[in-house]
C-alpha cells in the first residue's frame, strides 16, 4: 500500500486504468472462448466496450476541458455511419475482417474529427450553458441530416443523395445508408478483442494527452481561463485540440458500435444517448478515468441485469441515479461522510501510533 502511495498520480492512474481493462479481458475472454457466456451477456460485450470508449472520450471534454457537451452521440453517429459505408465499400477488395474493421474505425474517427473541427470552431467561442446548448443543437442537427442521407455503392463508385434511395441510381446494389431506416445488412465484424484494443488505444491517447504539455494547458484553461490566457496559453488552440481528439475517439467508438449490429438507425444516436454517456462520466467522477470506466460498466450492465423487474427497471435506474447524486453531492450527506471519514482516520492514526510503540 505504501509503495502504491509513493508512485506518482500519473503512474497510479495508468496502472488502475490498464489494470481494469486487462482484468476484464482475462476474465471474459476465456469464458467467451469456452462458450460459457449466455447470449445476453455476449451480446453486451461490444456495446459495453464502445460505451467505455465513449465515456473516456467525453471525460476528456467534460472532466479535463471542463465544458459540458450534450451532443456527444452526434460524433458517435458520424463515426458509425462513415465506418459502415467504408466497410461496405471495401467488402470485396479487402477479405480480412480485422483489417477492414481497422480501416473502418480509422475512417470513422477521421470523419468524426472533421465534424469535431467544424463544430468546435463556433462552439469553443461560447461558454458554460450556452456551449452546452449549442452542442445539443449540433447533436440534433447531425441526427436530422443522417436521417435524410442516402448512400449507395456499386461498380460506378459511391453515390450520395439527400432525397431518396431511388435518386442514388444504383445498378445491382442496395443502398448502404437508407435515410431514416439507417444502415441495413451490415456485416458484423466487431469483436470483443477489437473492443478491448480500442479501449486501450483510447486510454493511451487520453492518459498521455492529459499528462503532456497540451494536457496541462487544457487543465489550466479549465481552472481559470483568464489566468491561463495571461501566462500565454492560446485558449482556442488548446480547447479545439482537446475537443477534436475527443470527437475522433467518439467516432472510432461509433464505428465499432455500428459494426456489431446488422442494422442501425440514426435515431439511435439521439439526445438520450448523449445524456446516458454524460451520466456515466459524471457518476464515475468526471476526470477520474478508472472511475469513469467502472461507472460505465456497472451502469450500462445494470438496466440489463434488472431485466427481471421488467417495466420497473428504468424506474429503479432513475431512483438509483437520483439517490446517488443526492448522496454524493448534497451538503447534508457531505457532512455525514466527513464525520465518518474523520472517525476512520482517527482510528487509523491511533493504530499507527500503537504499532509504532510496539515495534519500538
Amino acid at each position, binding site marked *: 500500500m505504501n509503495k502504491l502511495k509513493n508512485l506518482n498520480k500519473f503512474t497510479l492512474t495508468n496502472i488502475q486504468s490498464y489494470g481494469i481493462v486487462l482484468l476484464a479481458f482475462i476474465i471474459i475472454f476465456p469464458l467467451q472462448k469456452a462458450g460459457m457466456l449466455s447470449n445476453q451477456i455476449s451480446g453486451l460485450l461490444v456495446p459495453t466496450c464502445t460505451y467505455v470508449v465513449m465515456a473516456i472520450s467525453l471525460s476528456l471534454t*467534460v472532466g479535463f476541458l471542463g465544458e*459540458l457537451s450534450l451532443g456527444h452521440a452526434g460524433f458517435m453517429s458520424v463515426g458509425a455511419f462513415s465506418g459502415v459505408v467504408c466497410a461496405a465499400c471495401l467488402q470485396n477488395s479487402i477479405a480480412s475482417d480485422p483489417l477492414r474493421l481497422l480501416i473502418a474505425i480509422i475512417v470513422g474517427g477521421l470523419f468524426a474529427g472533421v465534424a469535431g473541427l467544424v463544430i468546435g470552431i*463556433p462552439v469553443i*467561442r*461560447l*461558454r458554460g*450553458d*450556452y456551449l*452546452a*446548448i*449549442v452542442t*445539443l*443543437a*449540433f447533436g*440534433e*442537427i447531425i441526427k*436530422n*441530416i443522417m*436521417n*435524410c442521407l442516402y448512400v449507395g455503392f456499386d461498380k460506378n463508385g459511391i453515390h450520395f443523395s439527400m432525397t431518396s434511395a431511388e435518386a442514388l441510381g444504383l445498378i445491382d446494389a442496395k443502398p448502404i445508408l437508407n435515410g*431514416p431506416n439507417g444502415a441495413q445488412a451490415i456485416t458484423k465484424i466487431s469483436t470483443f478483442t477489437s473492443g478491448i484494443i480500442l479501449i486501450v488505444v483510447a486510454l493511451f491517447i487520453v492518459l498521455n494527452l492529459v499528462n503532456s504539455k497540451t494536457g496541462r494547458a487544457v487543465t489550466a484553461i479549465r481552472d481559470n481561463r*483568464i*489566468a491561463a490566457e495571461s501566462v500565454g496559453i492560446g485558449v482556442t488552440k488548446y480547447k479545439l485540440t482537446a475537443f477534436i481528439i475527443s470527437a475522433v475517439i467518439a467516432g472510432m467508438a461509433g464505428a465499432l458500435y455500428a459494426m456489431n449490429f446488422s442494422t442501425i438507425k440514426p435515431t439511435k444516436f439521439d*439526445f438520450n444517448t448523449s*445524456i446516458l454517456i*454524460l*451520466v456515466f462520466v*459524471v*457518476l464515475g467522477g*468526471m476526470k477520474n478515468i478508472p472511475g469513469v470506466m467502472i461507472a460505465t460498466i456497472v451502469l450500462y450492465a445494470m438496466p440489463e441485469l434488472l431485466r427481471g423487474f421488467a*417495466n*420497473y427497471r*428504468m*424506474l429503479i*435506474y*432513475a*431512483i438509483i*441515479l*437520483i439517490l446517488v*447524486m*443526492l448522496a*454524493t*453531492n*448534497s*451538503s*447534508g*450527506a457531505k457532512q455525514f461522510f466527513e464525520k465518518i471519514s474523520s472517525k476512520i482516520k482517527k482510528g487509523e492514526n491511533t493504530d499507527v501510533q500503537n504499532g509504532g510503540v510496539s515495534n519500538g
Partner: protein
Amino acid sequence: MTFLSNLINGISLGSVYAIIALGYTMVYGIAKMLNFAHGDVIMVGAYISFCATTYLNLPPVVSVVLAMIVCTVLGVLIEGLAYKPLRKATSLAVLITAIGVSYFLQNVALLIWGSNPKTFSSIIRLGSVSLFDNKLIITTESIVTVLACIVIMIALTMFTKKSKMGKAMRAVSEDKDAAELMGINVNVTISVTFAIGSALAAIAGVLLCSAYPVLQPTTGSMPGIKAFTAAVFGGIGSIPGAMLGGILLGIIEIFSKSYISTQLADAIVFAVLIIVLLVKPTGILGKKITEKV
C-alpha cells in the same frame, strides 16, 4: 394565404414553446439550473387533463385547473426532494439529478398509463374561424393558445414587477446572498418559482396536446428541448426573451417545414439557434456577462 396560415400556425406553436420556455427561464434565472425535468412536467399535466376529461367526465376548464394543481404540487415536491439538498453542489450534479427526475417521471407515466399513445381530444371544442371565403382557416386552438400566451406574459411581467414575491424573485436572481441579507427567504422564493413554472407547464401541456393530439410518456421531451432552446435563443433568464424566442422558434419551425423540408425542419431550427448565439452569445435579449478576474 398559405403564408398567412403558416404564420398563424407558427405563432400558435411558438406560443406553446413560449409558455414552456417561461418555466425554464424563470427557474434558470433564480436557481441557475437547467431543469431538464420540465418537459416531463408538461407530459404529466397533459395526462392529468386527459384523465379528468375522459374518465371523470369533468368539464375542460376544471380539467385544466386540476392539471395545474397537480403539476404545481409535483414541481414543488421535485424541487424540495431532489434539488434543494443540492443548492450548493456543482451545476453538473444538479443537471444529472434533473435528468434522473426526468427518467423517473417518464417511467412512472409509463407504468400508470402504458406506452400506447393516447389520443388527446382537444379541450377547446368551438370549431374554427374562416376568413377570406374559407381560404384562411384559423382553428380556435390557435386563437386560445395565443391569447393564453399573451395573458400569461402580461400577468407574469406584472407579478415580477409589482408584487412583493416578484420583487423577491428578481432580487434572488440578481444576488442570492445579498437577497438573504435583506430578509428574503430564498428557499420559499425558489419553491414559488418552481410552482409557477410547473403550473405554466400544465397549461402548455394541455395546449400542446390540443394542437398535436398524441399523448405518450415521451411527449414532453422534444417540446421541452425546443422550449429550452427557445429560452436560450431569447436570452435565458429574461421573461420577454423567452416569449420572443418561443414565438420566433415556432415560426421558423413551421416555415421551414412548409417551404424547405419536413425532415430537416428541426436541423434548421437548431442551425438558426447556433447562428444567433454566435452573433449574440447570450441570446437576443440576454444581458451581457462581464467577467471579473
